[in-house]
Every structure is written in C-alpha cells, then in structure tokens.
C-alpha cells in the first residue's frame, strides 16, 4: 500500500523534473544565442544605431530649415497683399495636410491591451487592440470633427494606412505598439462623445481593453515625419 503511494509520488516528480529540465535546456539554448553575439551582428547593430542617429540629426535640421523657409516666404511676400494672403493659405494648408506641428484643445484617448492573463480567455484575439479597432476609433474622431490626429506621435495624413503587422500595428509604415495614445484636436466636448453608450469605446471596454479618454486644452500634435509625395497624379483644371 505504502509502496504504491511512494511510487506514484516519485513518478509525478520525475515527470515534473523532466518538464523542468526540458524548459531549462531550451532557454539555455536561446540565451546562448543572446550571449554569444557574433562579431558581425555587433557590427550591424552599431551600423543601425549610426544610421538612426544620422537620421535623427538630419530630421532636426529639416525642421529648422522649414521654419526658416516659412520666415523667408513671409519676408518675400509681406509687401504684397495678394501674396501675403497666399502665404497664409500655404501655412494653413500645411497644417491641414500634416506638414506642420499643430496645437489646440481636444482629447487624448488611450487604448491598451487587456491585462487579463491569456489563459483565462477562450480567444486570445479578444484581449488585444487590433488595427481595425484603431481605425474605427480614428473614424469616430473624424466624425466628431477632429482637425488633426496622431497615434503614438504618428500624424494621420491623407496617405496614412493602419494595418496589422504581427504583434504590433503599422501606421505610416512605422511599427506602433500598445498602449496606443491617440491625440485629437477639435471641440473637446464633441470629441468626448466617443465615450457615449453604444460607441466604439464602450464596445472595447466590454472586452476588458484598457480605455481612457481625457479632455485637454493644450494638445500638441507633431508633424508627419515622412514626405508627402504625389508621383502618379497631377493637377488638372476643373471642367466646370
């Protein structure tokens, strides 16, 4: 009687031990890869960082030069009221298409993957924020009269696509992960209606997605970091 009990316990232990050892070996294998970074990989890593820095530098320069251009344009047009008017139109258009930083009142919406542990849900897809969710929230904001929107500092411009990219979402072809901080400029009261019963935010809350909405009087939305280019199309005179 006693012997059987002992054998069962020993048997269970052996199983658990085997499992533990397997897990251990696999991690050790993985971490070996991590530790033994090859010479070549280190070089690559340095190269990536170098280019990132170079890009950051030149990006700052561009921002400065654009300010200069604006000043220069202003100087060149200030003596002529027609030109001055056109200059104002250019500046205004740049704000609308996302080529200039903008400030104003609005809301900040944050969406965060559910903190529920993944083994407590039937479908893993239910607890993470998807590209479609972000797209719907953006559409609702536009409907509520948003004048400028950004997601994790990626400005929404006319060519912005929001798509699924494995674990993360790609916006303007840049990878963006949870939490998603969506900033929108517009009438705060109207934008805050996103929170209404039956709205998309409520729907997300049902799935335990972390949702918060906050009004603010001072929101800054950065300019689009890429270049807006029209290669295939050209302007034609209206036929009317």
């Amino acid at each position, binding site marked *: 009687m006693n012997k059987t009990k*002992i054998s069962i*316990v020993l048997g269970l*232990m052996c199983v658990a031990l085997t499992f*533990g050892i397997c897990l*251990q070996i696999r*991690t050790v294998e*993985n*971490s070996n890869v*991590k530790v033994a970074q090859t010479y070549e*990989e280190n070089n*690559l*890593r340095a190269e*990536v*960082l170098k*280019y990132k820095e170079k*890009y950051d530098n*030149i990006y700052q320069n561009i921002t400065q*030069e654009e300010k200069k*251009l604006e000043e*220069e*344009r202003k*100087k*060149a*047009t200030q003596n*002529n009221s*027609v*030109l001055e008017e*056109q200059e104002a139109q*250019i500046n205004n*258009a740049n704000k*609308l*298409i*996302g080529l200039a930083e903008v*400030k104003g009142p*609005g809301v900040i919406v944050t969406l965060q993957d559910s903190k529920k542990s993944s083994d407590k849900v039937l479908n893993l897809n239910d607890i993470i924020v998807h590209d*479609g969710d972000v797209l*719907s929230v953006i*559409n*609702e904001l*536009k*409907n509520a009269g948003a*004048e400028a929107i950004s997601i994790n500092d990626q400005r929404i*411009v*006319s*060519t*912005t*696509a*929001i798509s699924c990219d494995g674990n993360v979402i790609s916006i303007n072809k840049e990878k963006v992960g949870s939490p998603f901080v969506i900033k929108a400029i*517009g*009438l705060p009261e109207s934008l805050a209606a996103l929170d209404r019963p039956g709205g998309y935010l409520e729907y997300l809350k049902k799935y335990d997605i972390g949702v918060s909405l906050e009004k603010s009087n001072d929101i800054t939305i950065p300019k689009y970091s*890429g*270049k807006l280019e*029209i*290669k*295939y*199309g*050209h*302007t*034609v005179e*209206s036929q009317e």
Partner: protein
Amino acid sequence: MKKGKITMIFTVAIAFFALACVMSMQFKLVNETDITSIENLREEELQEQLASWKQKYEEAQNQYKEVKDKIQEYADKKTSDIETSALVKTELEEANLLLGKTDVEGEGIEIVINENKDDDFVRIKDSDLLSIVNSLKYAGAEAISINEERILPMTDIVDIQYSFIKINGQRILAPYVIKAIGNKSHLESSLLGNGGYAERLKNIGHQVTITQKDNVLVKKYNGDITTKYIQEDENN
C-alpha cells in the same frame, strides 16, 4: 521502516522545493526577455532595420536639400514681386493638390461595387468602405474618391441608421464607385487574393469589378476646409 519513510518524505520535499525554485526563475527569465530590444535582434532583423533606416536617412537627405533649395530661391527672388509670386503659386498649388482641393488625374484603378440585392443582411457598411480605403492607402494611393466624394485627411465614413452611408457629411448610395490614383497594379493587388477585401465582399454575394486605368480623374473636394480649434502659433 518508519525512519525510511521520514527520509523519503524529506527527500521528496527538498526535490519539490528545488524544482519550484528553478521553475520560478525560469518564468522570470522568460518574462524579462524583451524581444524588441536591439540587443536581442537576430542578423536578418538587423539587416532589415539597417535597410529601413538607410532608406529613411536618404529620403530625409533629399528632403533637406529640397527645403534648402526653396529657401535659396526665395532669398534670390525676394526683390521681384513677379518672381516671388510664381514661387508662391507653385507652392500653393502643391499644397492644394495634397489637400484635395484640386482635380487630380493619373494612373490608377476604378472599383465598382454593386450590392447583393437578395439579402438585406449583407449590405455594404461604412466599415467595408473604410477598409477598402485603408487598403488603397496602404498600397500607396495618392488620391481617392467614393462616388465623387473626395477622401480628405479628416474624412469620416459613417453608417446612418444602418440604411445609408455618409462621407464628408454627404449621403452616398449604391452602386459605389471608388476611384484611386497610384500604381495601378499595386492598388489592384491590395484588394485581391486571399484576405483581400474585394474577395471578401464577393464571397458574401456582392458584385465587385476592378478596372486598371491609365487615366483616372479624381474630383476635388467642393466644400470649404476650415479649422476652428487648431491654434495659430504664438510666434507668428
């Protein structure tokens, strides 16, 4: 016999304890491994990143040069009103083109969607059009319109009472004609194939026709684009 039993239990307990320790360490290690940090990237990923940063850097370099050139031009021509006005005009035209205030013509595709009339349940919804527009943008569309309503940066597409769709606040009705300018084969393939949105609509009985064209005309936005809440810069 009794002594043997106690030793046995003792050994088992120690073994379990050791096991629990190892496992908890294990889980901690697995949790702490950040797969996105640059230290943990593999060679192929690094190469991919390098290529993308290089490309971005080169693009930025070009952009930098362009801005510089423009400044130079303004500086050179600032004394002559006629020359300045030509410069301002080009810049304004470009801005209006990007904004959607001009008619645009170019290579692209035309999509016509006829709704499935037998089944009321599967009507075309706002989210369908939204997804199509999103796919087109992903494929590099430069200008898009749906039933001649131009898609602007801040254009919304919404269902009203589940019976019709509003774009830019204008009511639009089936059949839906979507025009997009860009690389025509890229645009078309973004909607076709497995998971392509046109394919999905076809599967639920809608008629979708996509035509590649060398000359698509996307009309301008007819309303005024005004802003009320974007503030002027303090330094202006």
